[in-house]
């Protein structure tokens, strides 16, 4: 887990400019900021890996692959190719 403190340097329609202590400049969507945050506010960001969602998504993706294979990847009896 990583936790870090950032200053909101600027607040725009949809993007905020955040500054780290060591002068990193980060563009950050305002939608991800808590309510009440203003230019000049300081925020804490915690960042964690989300293994659960990873697994879920993987499963869903596998289902899509299976569906594609079963729909288009099997030798169906071909409809007769009419020649006119």
């Amino acid at each position, binding site marked *: 887990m990583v936790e870090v403190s950032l200053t909101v340097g600027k607040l725009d*329609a949809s*993007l905020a400019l955040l500054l780290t202590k060591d002068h990193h400049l980060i563009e950050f969507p305002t939608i991800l900021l808590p309510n009440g945050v203003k230019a000049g506010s300081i925020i804490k960001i915690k960042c964690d890996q989300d293994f659960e969602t990873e697994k879920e998504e993987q499963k869903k993706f596998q289902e899509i692959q299976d569906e594609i294979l079963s*729909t288009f990847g099997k030798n169906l009896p071909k409809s007769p190719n009419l020649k006119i």
Partner: protein
Amino acid sequence: MLQATVASIPEAKEEYLGSSIVERTSRLHSFADLGPADLCNIHKQSTTSKKNTEIGTFLYFTGVDTSNSASIAAHLQSLATLIGSKSQYWFGEKKHWKVPELTYCTYNAFSKVDMRVTVHIPGKFESHVVNNDGKFVHDKISDEELDNLWLETFVSSIVRCMIDSDDDDANKVGGLVEVRKINPFNNGKASHKLLKYFIEGFEKFFWDGPKLGCGVEIPQPSLISNYLVDGFLKVIQLTQSYDLALEALQRLEEREPSVITLIAQVLLLKDEEIKAVQLMNEGIEKNKRDADLLLLQAQFCMDKKRYDLALHLAKQAVKSSPSDFKTWAILVKAYTKLNDFENALLTLNSCPMNSHKEKYSLKRVVPLRGGNEDLHLPSPVDVTLDEVSNLQSNEISYEQRNLDPQLVNLPAANLKSTFAKAYDLLTEIVMKTGWESLLKYRAKVFVMEEEYRKDKHANGHTRKNSTNSVANGGENASENGNASENDASSTVAIKSPKKEINGTSETSPSDASTKLDESYENEFKKKRLCERWLDNLFMLLYEDLRAYTIWQAEYVHFQAQQMEYKKTTLEWEILGLIAFRLKHFKEGSIAFANALSGRFSAKSQREILKYYIMERSKILSKNSNNSSSQSSNDNSSTYTHNYTKIVNQLNERILESCIKLLVWNHRWYVDFSPTLINTLADLVSKEGLIKIQSLVQAVYSNNINPSDNTGNHGITDMMDDLYTFFKEYESLGFDN
């Protein structure tokens, strides 16, 4: 076979003897990616004039066999013979030339050297290798290295002649015309050897493919996406040599798993759909973040109309390669097909733009000091079709001068690179939503850039500055107050709600930021900033729609008044292009047909050809549905009759369009048009060669209607060349 004539060789005069070579040498260091077309320098002596003065000319070539110095020497020799064989009109004077010396330069894009062959007549030929600095490095090269350089050169040449787009007008204003393009694979048995040699070269230099550059849809060439691979696939499709390709690719796949995407692509070209699907599935199992493969799979699902599946794949592709335009583009398409327009707009807004790249096209290496005065552009007389070959340029320039000002320079027509592609995505959306709804969707998801124009943020720190090279119209307008106000009055419908804050308080930084702080929590926070380039595309879309709407309204009005709606060919063509940009294909095709009823126009012909092909495939796919569901239906036979009639009609139109374009290209020394060959090959596969042959014979036997501008000559000979090509490569349908 159609023999080249001296009238098929365009030439440009050099400033002084050999200056074109000097110029090329001085520019070698600036050649990027594939490099330019081959250059041929010709020394000419007049046999008629007394003084033994030599002049120098040059022209460019693509498609010449550059696999070794001897084959280039042979090409030069035959060129010299051709020029010396007959007298010709040379800038208004009848001249008989002797050619004592020729030099051919062809660029090796892998090793970044220029390979050169000089032939002395009579005498021997010699070859040189020139590096980026213009220095001869031939001496330092071993025989083995030299063989390798020639193979690289050959592969470079073939890729160049395949990638060079034949979509563009061969004779566009200011473009390169002193170029002759030859089909490298239409040389009987010998071309089979060349094909094998090319595939061998492809396999060998596959790992250096990124050196050749790539198209505009990706920011950087990768092993799987680059011009070498593009060229290879085009050769395979042209010659239908799928099995040769698969062998080579399977060997490569053992070393590089991502080659699986290319194998699947060739299988799809070969119509082995099930195999391809299985292979793609296997590939994804191995690497579910292979963006190229995900893209191919997504495209396949789109083609099968399973947009739900395509959506999932496109999302995964974006996650796997978020800096590529093409992954985002297919996501936009999937959302659009699924009528999820809000997400379509949001993803469109996230597409990474690529403003620095241009489509590959052949360019002048040697500038024409005297402009067009330096050009010798003879008219080939071996293949002609009056309406095409006799097209007068003064007629076109008359139309240009008298062009309806409303139709001049519609900025959407000049979009480049990813901006053009993004516009295409946007028109697909508006096609389904209509303009008014589109504006509502836009207002729902975006805060408009102009509400934040004063915003300092817009400068150094955002992606927005990638858009500065968008069509100038919009940019200029926003730069000075008055102009943009004038603009506002004409595009009032497109403007988002006027700013409420005004003047004073708006420009005060402390003030503005307080205002923003207060309000951002509600509306703005949920919306996203619309990228400036997308904002600009909305503007261009409005202008296209306005022009289109005016045209349609006028047309109805004229019809009601029973008056003729008169436009020049150029105007119809522009209207057709607007309609096609807006996906109103039916209306566009009418405009192009009107354009072509006035005079021949290569652009209109090419566009209407696309329409015919689109229509045919629509009918064919409808029929395959019908034939399964309605096979027991009573109307079956009437249906079949109508269907056959329509398809036959379309096929005839396609054939006619191809032939006219082939004649046009031939007039401009272009005897290799991959797209047209593929279209005709497709026709042959559907109808059989015999039927096509007899159709051509019936309509284009020499000199049928010399009176009504349909007189023609040599067309059957020209087509014979293509039949030979189809037979040589055993194209589908060549044998019935």
